[in-house]
């Protein structure tokens, strides 16, 4: 998981990618969205979504319920096909790609409503994420050729290593569905990391966690970024988490970006306060 140090840059989501502000001129973002939008029938769920994420940045996507945050994730991973706009991953256009191909381009994600392979063991869940780490083919599997053993051994070692991030090595033989809620969320992150992403999308990673678990998760997210040198974008309602670890925050309301910037900017932004708390009554 070593990355070229030259490409390690940081930038906050930029206001518009059409006119790239000066501070970002010489930096190549891992993800760039331009005028991204989707309509469901007559409903515009997301519109004119512009943002860019640096290669080792932790970015937050927040907004009231129904603002279209998860829709953005689904657009980025092509679970939905966007009606308008482009998504560039590492400078490559994702138009016409399938979800599978997006994963191969280096975007991994977790889901708001956990989508683990519940009937399979923890180990199998991670091994499925490591699918492409193994390169043996069908005959190699049927006849148990040396390539099979080598591939499986390396993958299993790697899986244990990845599970070690969350101290889950001892759970390898448990069924994923039998794990406690928090552990399921963590396993989903491990599975996503197993695909070797350069951008990790976390959809409400702290949902249903208690404060101490959340604090631990915050440390782990930062640690994952530091060890793997990847960008992380997360949707979260826990403001302590978002303000604590995100370097750039993007606020969405009714499918449109209403504010972008550092946590300090966002906290002071009147539009954000209005979206969350409502308008002050005119006296």
């Amino acid at each position, binding site marked *: 998981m070593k990355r070229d140090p030259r490409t390690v840059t940081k930038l906050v989501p930029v206001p518009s990618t059409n006119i790239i502000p000066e501070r970002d001129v010489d930096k190549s973002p891992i993800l760039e969205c331009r005028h991204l939008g989707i309509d469901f029938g007559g409903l515009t769920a997301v519109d004119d979504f512009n943002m860019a994420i640096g290669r080792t940045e932790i970015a937050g996507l927040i907004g009231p319920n129904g603002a279209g945050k998860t829709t953005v994730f689904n657009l980025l991973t092509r679970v939905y096909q966007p009606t308008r706009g482009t998504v560039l991953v590492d400078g490559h256009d994702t138009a016409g790609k399938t979800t*599978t191909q997006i994963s*191969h381009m280096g975007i991994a994600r977790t889901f708001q409503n956990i989508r683990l392979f519940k009937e399979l063991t923890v180990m199998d869940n991670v091994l499925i994420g490591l699918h492409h780490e193994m390169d043996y083919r069908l005959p190699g599997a049927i006849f148990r050729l040396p390539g099979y053993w080598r591939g499986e051994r390396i993958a299993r070692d790697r899986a244990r290593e990845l599970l070690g991030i969350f101290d889950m090595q001892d759970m390898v033989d448990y069924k994923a569905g039998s794990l406690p809620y928090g552990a399921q969320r963590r396993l989903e992150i491990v599975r996503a990391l197993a695909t070797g992403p350069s951008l990790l999308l976390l959809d409400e990673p702290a949902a249903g966690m208690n404060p101490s678990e959340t604090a631990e998760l915050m440390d782990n997210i930062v640690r994952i970024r530091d060890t793997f040198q990847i960008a992380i974008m997360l949707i979260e309602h826990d403001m302590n988490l978002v303000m604590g670890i995100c370097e750039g925050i993007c606020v969405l309301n009714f499918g449109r970006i209403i504010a972008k910037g550092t946590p300090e900017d966002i906290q002071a932004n009147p539009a954000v306060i209005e979206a969350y708390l409502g308008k002050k009554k005119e006296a």
Partner: protein
Amino acid sequence: MMKQNRIRIPMPLRYLINILLTVALWGALTALIAGGVITNYWSGILVTIGINIILAVSLNVATGYLGQLPLGHAGFMAVGAYAGSIYMKATPLGELIRSGDTLAALPYMLVALVLSGVVAGLFGLIIGIPALRLKGDYLAIITLGFGEIIRVVLTNIDSVLGFKFTYGAAGLKQIPKISSFTLVFICVAVTCLVIHMVMKSRHGRAILSIRENEIAAESVGINTTYYKVMAFVMSAFFAGIAGCLYAGYLGSLFPSTFKFMKSIEILVMVVLGGMGSMLGSVLSATVLTVISELLRSVGDLRMVFYSLALVLMMIFRPKGLLGSYDFSMSRILEKALGFLFRPGTRKAQKKGGAAK
């Protein structure tokens, strides 16, 4: 901590144990047949059991492991049966079997089996690519339609380009009877082995991941279309082999054998045994074949029994007899050994005490 009591048998030894057990089972059954303990009538049923096991285990790949519901398994069986039979009739296989020259017949048999599997697999590919774009009920209907098309075509076509091939509704007769108990046994063992080996590899895990959660599978980079088709083709391939064995057992083929009810019969075996459990499929194929033989005297009433068994099963054990539990002789052996010898409990404590 819990696992300390379990002795892990190293991998090559495990394979050896399983191979030895399989050979022992074959030896025992052959001896019983030779000794006359298993009568001719029952050894014939053993062959039917074997064929049904292959059918159930192969359907289990598409139903239990992939999580789809194809209803045209008899169609693939028919394709394999006809492909194998036409080939066998074109070779001197019949003569060789009659003269008892098994060794010379062996290559022909192998080619016939592989050919029937490949042709059925090819049909699986042709059907699978469009059908697997659909899910659930839609897939069930499209495969049901395919199975019926095969049967109707076989009923109505008796010659291709002037060559008499399939003989239509009159049936394909005088097929060399290749399906000895040993051949069927080997086919069953190979089928189970191959499917097991595939399922315990990255390809098998990919197939399982589609059953568990297709969106999640896609999001971790599994090419779901590819693996769906792979599972489907594998399922059809072994159904084709079963068809060939079926033809080689009866010696004649009639399109009416491969009716929709045949597909349902196989599906019942899989559901009853537990979707996703190979041992379940094997057991329920065995039990259901024996029961339907015993109920032969009541004729079509056995379908009532089938339905009743299914209804009761769905009420009391919706996951099937064995659920998704898969059998491993060596695992049981490991547990037994661990229970007998218990390494590292008392001894380790003593050692720990001495060290202090």
